[in-house]
């Protein structure tokens, strides 16, 4: 833009059209990066899912055979079925982070001495890497020395090998995931609670509304924006669950804790993997599931934009 100073004719053209051109110049670098690394790869993956490719030789076009194979896995209740089922469990149970976060936020929403430090410490799990969370909970569940079994033993229960039992393993990992996720929702609600209109609360109190009714009819409606964000980040988090599974079980025992995100990686890049096309097909399915939520989210945003 400074270069334009040397060329008066061009400058005037530029000046006249500045308002139209400027946004594109500002967008160019970000858009370029985003196109190359995010948008185009999505389409490349769609394309790749129609091929069989081991990452070495030439890719072979196989049409929809990868999807056909996935269908048979579903039919035979093999890995893909288990992944899909676990994804569903993740989606549903992960949402527990929202009420749990709200509960803790309500608990901490007081003004006593040191409460700020308490709030920070409660938020702690969210800033820790999921890798560390995974390690921490792996030890928590350890069948020989885990804190969980110490705890169960205290009540005369157990021992339980959570991560080694295909009935519990997914729930065990979700529970670990809920720890940081609840912290996240908590902070969203704590901030939301700050903005709740005190007059409405007073009015509610005068009407004799009891805590639960007050929460439901007066507080929650005002927390809607926080709930919405909490919902979005929790859904995305549930569908992205990869780190914890990779660290805690590697999809085991015997593949019972796989989810689509992990299964895709396993098929495409792990030691015994390198079926890129098949992995891409799994990624496409995961993407389509996510797309439902993305569409919903964009729709909400669109309505809000139009409302402005």
């Amino acid at each position: 833009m400074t270069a334009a100073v040397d060329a008066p004719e061009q400058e005037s053209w530029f000046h006249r059209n500045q308002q139209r051109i400027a946004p594109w110049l500002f967008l160019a670098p970000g858009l370029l990066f985003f196109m190359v690394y995010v948008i185009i790869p999505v389409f490349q993956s769609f394309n790749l899912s129609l091929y069989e490719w081991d990452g070495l030789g030439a890719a072979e076009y196989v049409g929809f055979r990868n999807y056909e194979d996935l269908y048979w896995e579903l039919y035979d209740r093999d890995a893909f079925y288990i992944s899909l089922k676990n994804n569903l469990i993740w989606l549903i149970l992960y949402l527990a982070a929202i009420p749990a976060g709200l509960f803790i936020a309500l608990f901490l929403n007081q003004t006593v001495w040191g409460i700020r430090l308490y709030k920070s410490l409660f938020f702690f799990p969210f800033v820790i890497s999921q890798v560390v969370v995974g390690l921490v909970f792996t030890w928590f569940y350890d069948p020989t020395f885990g804190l969980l079994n110490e705890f169960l033993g205290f009540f005369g229960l157990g021992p339980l090998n959570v991560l080694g039992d295909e009935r519990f393993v997914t729930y065990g990992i979700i529970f670990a995931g809920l720890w940081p996720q609840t912290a996240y929702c908590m902070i969203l609600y704590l901030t939301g609670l700050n903005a709740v209109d005190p007059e409405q609360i007073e009015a509610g109190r005068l009407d004799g509304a009891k805590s639960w009714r007050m929460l439901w009819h007066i507080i929650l409606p005002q927390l809607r924006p926080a709930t919405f964000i909490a919902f979005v980040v929790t859904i995305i988090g549930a569908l992205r669950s990869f780190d914890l599974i990779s660290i805690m079980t590697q999809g085991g025992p015997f593949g019972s804790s796989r989810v689509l995100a992990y299964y895709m990686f396993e098929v495409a890049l792990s030691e015994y993997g390198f079926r890129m096309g098949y992995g891409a097909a799994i990624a496409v399915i995961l993407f389509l599931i996510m797309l439902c939520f993305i569409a919903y989210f964009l729709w909400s945003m669109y309505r809000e934009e139009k409302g402005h």
Partner: protein
Amino acid sequence: MFPKPIEKQPRAAQITYQAMLPLALLLWLGPLLAVALFSVKPAADFTNANYWGMPSSFEGAFNYGQVFFNSDMPRYLLNSFLITVPTVIGAVALSCMTGFALGIYKFKSNLWIFFMFVAGNFVPFQILMVPVRDLTLQLGLYNTKTGLVLFHIAFQTGFCTLFMRNFIRALPFELIEAARVEGISEWRIFWYVVLPLMKPAIAALSVLIFTFIWNDYFWAVVLTQGAESQPVTAGITSFNAQFRAAYQLMSAGSIVAALPPVAMFFLMQKHFIAGLTLGAVK
């Protein structure tokens, strides 16, 4: 305020509350405290099955010394910094511009481009994995910090654009109008008028992106593989392979790996929370 302020409740309730706070915290952070306890125990405690008792001797200095002087951990930490800091700078710089473009100008495809950034921000990583890995290989950047940084910048631009655009939208538009009337070029408006106002957003976003990127594990596994370029999240698995079953060292390593974003959070708490909750309350 909801629930009812505790000061206005009976004395008994106040005391109960005050007593419950530390208890709840202890329970909440229990698994983490256990790891902290592990990290100062001597190796002998584990062979003698003294997992949960007091450490038979305090070996914190030795254990952490091992982590810092007898493993690749310092290198992984350095890698993490060298990946995280350029990413933060790059993503924030790009998104200041995209956010400005989408927040200030009215043009036909504005909303669509904005939605593209938002939607891209939510796609599952797996659908990008193979093409991004191939691209990085072709660029000769596989297993380099640069390869990882470039991807992170690109991907984070989605979220950052959402953030910046909404922030700029909330700025008083009259300022820009006034500047335009003065005949100030668009670039100068961006640089001298808008950017100074964006400082709080930049601070908030930087802290947030720092944590996100520091904690990234998936892309570290996909795009890097050796001590020369792996960040600490991926490095800790190699570290654990090296010290398999040496729980005191694995614990110390985990604590070290977790510390930088925690420190960042405590130092920049205000910005951090402002960043996280932008849009949650309006």
